[in-house]
């Protein structure tokens, strides 16, 4: 190796992808220091592959938010269950709701372990921790860029940047502890959901007693009046408000400035409460991902039968629970009063458990397909997508906003739910091809390169070495 590790960036500059940081630095370490878990090409490949699947899959859940007013999806759920749109939603929600974000979070946790472990540190130089935190601060900035400038209100980078900052002290824990902590986070999230639902139920109960009192022609106390309006407000917030919907559609089909303004309060609201209440959603999966990665789950180290078992259990339990969850959401969207009267615990308690099972199922399935060597070209392409996950994620925002919003092609709210998935398919094919071509010539995706350069505060090599040689 011709490099001298004078700068930490040199550690990684040999092979462009993130995961190879381990390869390069461990190769150095193994010269003198303690031996290190075997790094095979497989390992790099599979992590990227799963990440690629998650990255593409995340668009399945995001596309309705990009492309239609939510009232459209709601009316599909309220309508007959025989329409193509309803069936599409049933399949998507049963199999994928939250799972792709879940996988993405898991791989973020895994990437965190990869980034911080085995990095050589120059005494007195910038520590790994500092690079890690710089990197995440930039990620927060990219997230805000994605939300406020690229106008993607469903951005997750902002949250990943912030929550990633909490992971650092946990990186050396045993896998079992990490998974226990992850499950603890899930439990906290569950409790919050149950608690919120109990509050809704309380509002409903107060309303019902106020209505009963009214029927007996008793004069209502101010408290009862308040109880009545509280429930009425909930009903009102659930009912479609045509004025608001039309205004939203009109705005989304207008120029950049109007949409930008329209999104400011939305984005700041999302980022405020998404951070404060949504933390358990992502943090739990990050911890579990760290644990699974240390166990070797994502690096193709487990036996085929283990992956088979995970697939069986994950899909076997996850799909039925997912279907029950979807059914619950349908009843909820049809008539919240009926839902609150019928259930004492919301379907939301199933959300994370179901998600975890399905994530395991998805990841095992990918691993098994990879091992079976059925479609190696596809797996390679997926790995390429995963390698450029950051670029591809931002690119989805760029493509979809341009396709749907008024300053681009203005297709907002013009497609039906199932038609949206044609767009998804097109974006997928494009990203699979684009990533494969790009990585032939460049070391990183463009945004990866920018992110890296900002983190190390020095311009990183961009073009692939072979090309440079051939040029000269």
């Amino acid at each position: 190796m011709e490099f001298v590790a004078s700068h930490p960036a040199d550690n990684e500059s040999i092979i462009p992808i993130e995961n190879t940081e381990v390869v390069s630095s461990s190769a150095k370490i193994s010269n003198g220091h303690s031996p290190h878990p075997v790094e095979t090409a497989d390992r790099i490949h599979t992590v990227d592959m799963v990440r690629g699947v998650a990255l593409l899959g995340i668009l399945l859940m995001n596309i309705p938010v990009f492309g239609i007013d939510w009232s459209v999806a709601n009316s599909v759920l309220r309508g007959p269950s025989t329409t193509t749109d309803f069936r599409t939603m049933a399949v998507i929600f049963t199999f994928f709701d939250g799972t792709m974000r879940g996988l993405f979070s898991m791989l973020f946790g895994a990437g965190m372990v990869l980034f911080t472990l085995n990095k050589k540190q120059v005494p007195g130089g910038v520590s790994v921790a500092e690079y890690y935190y710089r990197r995440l601060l930039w990620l927060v900035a990219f997230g805000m860029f994605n939300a406020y400038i690229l106008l993607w209100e469903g951005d997750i980078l902002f949250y990943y940047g912030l929550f990633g900052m909490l992971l650092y002290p946990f990186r050396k824990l045993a896998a079992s502890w990490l998974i226990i902590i992850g499950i603890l986070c899930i439990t906290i999230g569950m409790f919050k959901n149950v608690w919120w639902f109990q509050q809704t139920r309380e509002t409903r109960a107060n309303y019902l007693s106020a209505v009963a009192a009214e029927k007996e022609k008793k004069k209502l106390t101010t408290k009862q009046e308040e109880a009545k309006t509280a429930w009425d407000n909930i009903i009102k917030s659930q009912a479609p408000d045509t004025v608001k919907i039309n205004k939203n559609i009109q705005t989304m089909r207008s120029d950049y400035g109007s949409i930008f303004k329209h999104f400011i309060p939305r984005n700041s609201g999302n980022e405020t409460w998404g951070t404060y209440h949504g933390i358990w959603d992502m943090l739990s999966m990050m911890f579990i991902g760290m644990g699974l990665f240390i166990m070797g789950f994502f690096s193709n180290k487990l036996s085929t039968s283990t992956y088979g078992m995970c697939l069986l259990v994950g899909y076997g339990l996850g799909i039925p629970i997912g279907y029950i969850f979807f059914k619950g959401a349908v009843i909820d969207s049809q008539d919240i009063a009926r839902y609150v009267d019928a259930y004492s615990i919301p379907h939301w308690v199933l959300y994370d458990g179901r998600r975890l099972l399905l994530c395991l199922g998805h990841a095992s399935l990918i691993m098994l397909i990879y091992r079976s060597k059925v479609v190696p070209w596809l797996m390679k392409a997926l790995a390429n997508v995963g390698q450029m996950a950051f670029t591809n994620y931002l690119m989805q925002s760029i493509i979809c906003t341009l396709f749907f919003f008024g300053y681009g092609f203005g297709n907002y709210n013009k497609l039906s739910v199932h038609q949206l998935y044609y767009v998804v398919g097109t974006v997928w094919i494009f990203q699979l091809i684009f990533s494969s071509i790009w990585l032939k010539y460049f070391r990183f995706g463009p945004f990866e390169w920018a992110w890296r350069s900002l983190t190390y505060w020095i311009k990183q090599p961009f073009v692939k070495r072979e090309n440079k040689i051939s040029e000269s």
Partner: protein
Amino acid sequence: MLPELSPEDNDAITTSSKDLQPTLAIIRNPALDILRGMAVLGALFISIWIFGGFSTIQQNELLLQSKGGNYRLWGAMELLLDGKMRALICIVFGAGMVIFLSQKTEQVTTALPDLFIRRQLWLLGFGLLNALVFLWTGDILFQLAVVGILLFPFVRMNPRALWISATVVTLIYCGKIYWNYADDRTAYAKHTAVLAFEKKISKDSLLAAEKKIPLKEQKKDSLSAQQKEDKAAWEGIVQQHKHDLKAKDNGVKEVRNAEFGKIWDHFLQATQGREARWTYQTGVWDVGGMMLLGMALFKKRFFETNFPKSRYLLLGIACIAVGILLGWYRLQFQQYALRDYTKYVIGHWTPFNLLFPLERAFLTVGYAAGILFLFRSGLLRFVWTAFEKVGKLALTNYLFQSIFCLVFFTGFGMGYFGRLQQYQLYLFALEICIIQIVFSVFWLRYFTYGPAEWLLRCLMHWKWLPIKTHNKKSPASALPIHL
């Protein structure tokens, strides 16, 4: 005279203590302890408004009267302390971050960044405890923890870069204040447009009636939904800024409720609003700017014993003068805005509190410089000793303030919420200060760390540590400054 301590001495102490202390102990800087102590005690005089139920409405009433002893008392507190003590806490915290992260690492088994992040996470836990169990809605530990983590990569920067960062962050803070106000102005402009339209259509319909134009040919004569919304938006804003006496006893009943659960419910919204919305929109800039300033000042050796005394004096006088001037103007304009917000919006390009972040920064730095000048001059030594002791137990004292106030003011305890006059609240705060000073002095005679500080250290290192170090040469009391 106070012994001057050169950096070499500092090192000597650290290395000699290496064998005595398995885990690191923070070298205490008396200047920082004094300022921290003063900030924690001073902050109570503002927090007591919220603790004791001296509401914004009552404060606005005083501002509108703008005369009388009560107004002067409130004005002085608002001008001199409000926001400034929080700023001082943040400045000292920022300086403390630099000290923490530049300790000699060979003493420590765990890497410093790990310890630091762990400490911040536990501090976050303490903040949640303070807010959700001791029911202090204005808790600052939460923000110190979060923003401390965000600013971790900034610690390495040189003083100049830190200084620039602090300025940029403070300017963003000003910008956000301006931006909110600009929204109000836009809302007002829309409102005027709607009013003009309303006038026009009423004129049109009058004309139409005169000329007997058939109904079909008349123009649209009612406001669109958008116009109604615009009209209501501005009316809502005016309502917010209006002084409304009717809402005076709002919350008193809930806080005096005897059931802890009910009080908890009542405070939950405020707490979450503080931890989530305030942190996102304001706190990051508010706390972050001052932390960066603290780091910059520390790296400029502002807190060290060889910082020239004359410069303390100069900085103190100049900064306090500028700060008070800015605050004075702010209060004037705040009063105009309160009297008639519509008139204010028409007449002013900028919000009354546009320069509040600067006012705060100037006054706080001025205080710090002034106090350090007096301290270095050897004046009022007993005061500084008292503050130093309180500052060493800052976390303990801060948490105890919440507990005292929970017991004294809420219905869960004695239920004095909303029952005390303004001056009585300050007297109560003073009593707590005395209790805390006495407590801190006595506690430190027997122990090296305050109970909360000790707990935090144990949690951070994840093992039991002694609450006192027997050896007199121990790093915790290493600085040979006994006042």
